[in-house]
């Protein structure tokens, strides 16, 4: 029983970790290449979820909705870049934090304005509904497996893009030393825009993928944004590989920790206290983990800057 539970929780953890990775990948690039703290990255995840909700209500087809939502999320990210973020690149981090905080306030209210405060539901696509037996007697929802597959595919594509293409090379170079790249004659402004739009689209994709299993509501991006920041700080700012490993780690620690912290504590404490402290400690685990990582490695596990 416990091993099946562990397996299910591990799969949930991986699925959650991959979603985190999709968000964190864009964030870490924007952060690493442009040295720009974008708190509004979480609302781009929310916008992705809302877009897919709106399009799937309109077309009645999830795949089509996803296909429409992605370019819209990209366009939306580019719009924000041109309107606001572009003016913040040469500001200090404090100004960036505050201005993007303003964007969060605006967009959280704007989705309420357009779609109402009540959570929206997106039906799970027909083909991917239901469950599949992954071990004897253990059923697991197909859609969650699909998220894992999609997450891994995007991670693979991103790897190829970043380490085997010219744009990827520029991005990596930019994360290491943006000024030098600019001095070598690369149009850094355009590179920034590409990275930014791409990051926004990835976050939108993450939002779109979770829309059928979570409720789509205003403010849904706020907490996941903080987790994404935890991921990139643990992974090392600017490092895609670091973000990938850290995201999986955080996903697993969070999901498995919530289930097993009470059980684990039962070894030392009496059951009532154990379940109480366990429930108190579990949500703190990832932050304790992050503090520990930063204590020993103040610039994360895989720092891109040298």
């Amino acid at each position, binding site marked *: 029983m416990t091993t099946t539970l562990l397996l299910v929780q591990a799969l949930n953890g991986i699925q959650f970790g991959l979603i985190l990775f999709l968000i964190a990948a864009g964030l870490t690039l924007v952060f690493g290449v442009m040295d720009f703290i974008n708190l509004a990255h979480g609302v781009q995840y929310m916008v992705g979820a809302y877009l897919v909700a709106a399009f799937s209500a309109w077309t009645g087809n999830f795949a089509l909705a996803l296909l429409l939502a992605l370019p819209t999320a990209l366009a939306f990210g580019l719009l924000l870049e041109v309107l606001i973020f572009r003016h913040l690149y040469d500001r200090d981090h404090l100004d960036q934090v505050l201005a993007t905080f303003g964007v969060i306030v605006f967009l959280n209210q704007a989705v309420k304005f357009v779609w109402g405060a009540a959570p929206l539901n997106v039906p799970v696509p027909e083909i991917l509904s239901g469950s599949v037996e992954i071990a004897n007697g253990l059923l697991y929802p197909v859609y969650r497996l699909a998220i894992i597959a999609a997450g891994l595919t995007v991670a693979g594509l991103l790897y190829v893009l970043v380490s085997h293409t010219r744009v990827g090379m520029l991005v990596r170079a930019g994360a290491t030393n943006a000024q030098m790249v600019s001095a070598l004659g690369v149009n850094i402004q355009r590179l920034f825009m590409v990275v930014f739009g791409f990051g926004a689209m990835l976050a939108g994709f993450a939002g779109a993928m979770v829309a059928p299993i979570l409720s789509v509501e205003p403010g849904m991006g706020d907490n996941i944004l903080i987790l994404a920041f935890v991921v990139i700080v643990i992974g090392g700012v600017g490092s895609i590989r670091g973000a990938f490993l850290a995201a999986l780690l955080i996903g697993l620690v969070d999901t498995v920790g919530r289930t097993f912290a009470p059980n684990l504590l039962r070894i030392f404490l009496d059951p009532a206290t154990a379940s109480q402290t366990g429930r108190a400690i579990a949500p703190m685990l990832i*932050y304790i983990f992050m503090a520990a990582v930063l204590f020993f490695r103040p610039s994360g596990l895989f720092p891109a800057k040298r």
Partner: protein
Amino acid sequence: MTELAQTQPVSVRSPGWRPELVPIVLFAAFAAAPLLAPASGAEGYVLSLLTRVMIFGIAAMSLDLILGYGALVSFGHAAFLGIGAYAVGILASHGIEDALIQVPVALIGSALFALVTGAISLRTKGVYFIMITLAFGQMLFFLATSLAAYGGDDGMTLPSRSLVGGFPLLKSDAAFYWVSLLCLFGSYAFSRSVVASRFGRVLRGAKENPARMEAIGFHPFRYQLAAYVISGMIAGLAGCLMANQAEFVSPAFMTWQRSGELIFMVVLGGLGSLHGAIIGAALFLLLEEFLPEILHGASFMMDDAFRSHLAENWKMVFGPILILIVLFARGGIMGLLRRGRHG
């Protein structure tokens, strides 16, 4: 980080308006408010709004102490508000309702939390510092949501406001107003003396150029940590007041959005002047309070449905205002006042 770190130039003496008068005018206004409030016809409302302004003023000022004078962007400052509030709430729920016990416990709790988290956070620089303070803030937030015995997510209602030496001194809103003003003034005077002292100079030196400070024999780390602890304790005091004003305590006191708002208040008022943070807090809260009405009034040419819709969604205007302030009002209110003086 260097830009915000610049200290304002010492003002040139000229007759007439002086920025040095700002704190005097500010405190005089707070002291006069209870006398003028009855004229507004909604005395209770005005007093409670101003009390809230003063409490947030204390919190924002405590943040200015490390943000403005030490360039330490703490993105988890709301955690200290939570510690102060929960010290009051938890002790009260165990029958200890006296502020003479609650406040010291809150201060010690805040100091310990600041000491431990500060010692770890200050090992990191820049962005990492922002993120690690955020993480510690979130840690405490989630701890509070899991305290089932103390209301968990929903928080808990206090049986009454704290007693002072066994007497229900804070019971009336007017008395609470004066106590809050006293706390604001006390923490302002204390912070002012801290920044004016040798300690404050070392702190500013460490902000400008840590390497040089080390070269002349100072350990910036110790000074920054001490400042972080002092700042946390003042914010803890604000948390005690906050719990008492609302007679309610909940994890919502320490969301990361609240930490963001505190930073905003400091930047809005102008970094590194202490009273600027109080003005920033006042403007932020008043804007939040009155923006719906302002929008309703300003859209008089539209039909009623639109007007109420607009007032309801005031945050759609509030957000862009925040962005515009960051983009165009550099140096905050205090910066504007100074610039106005120099022409």
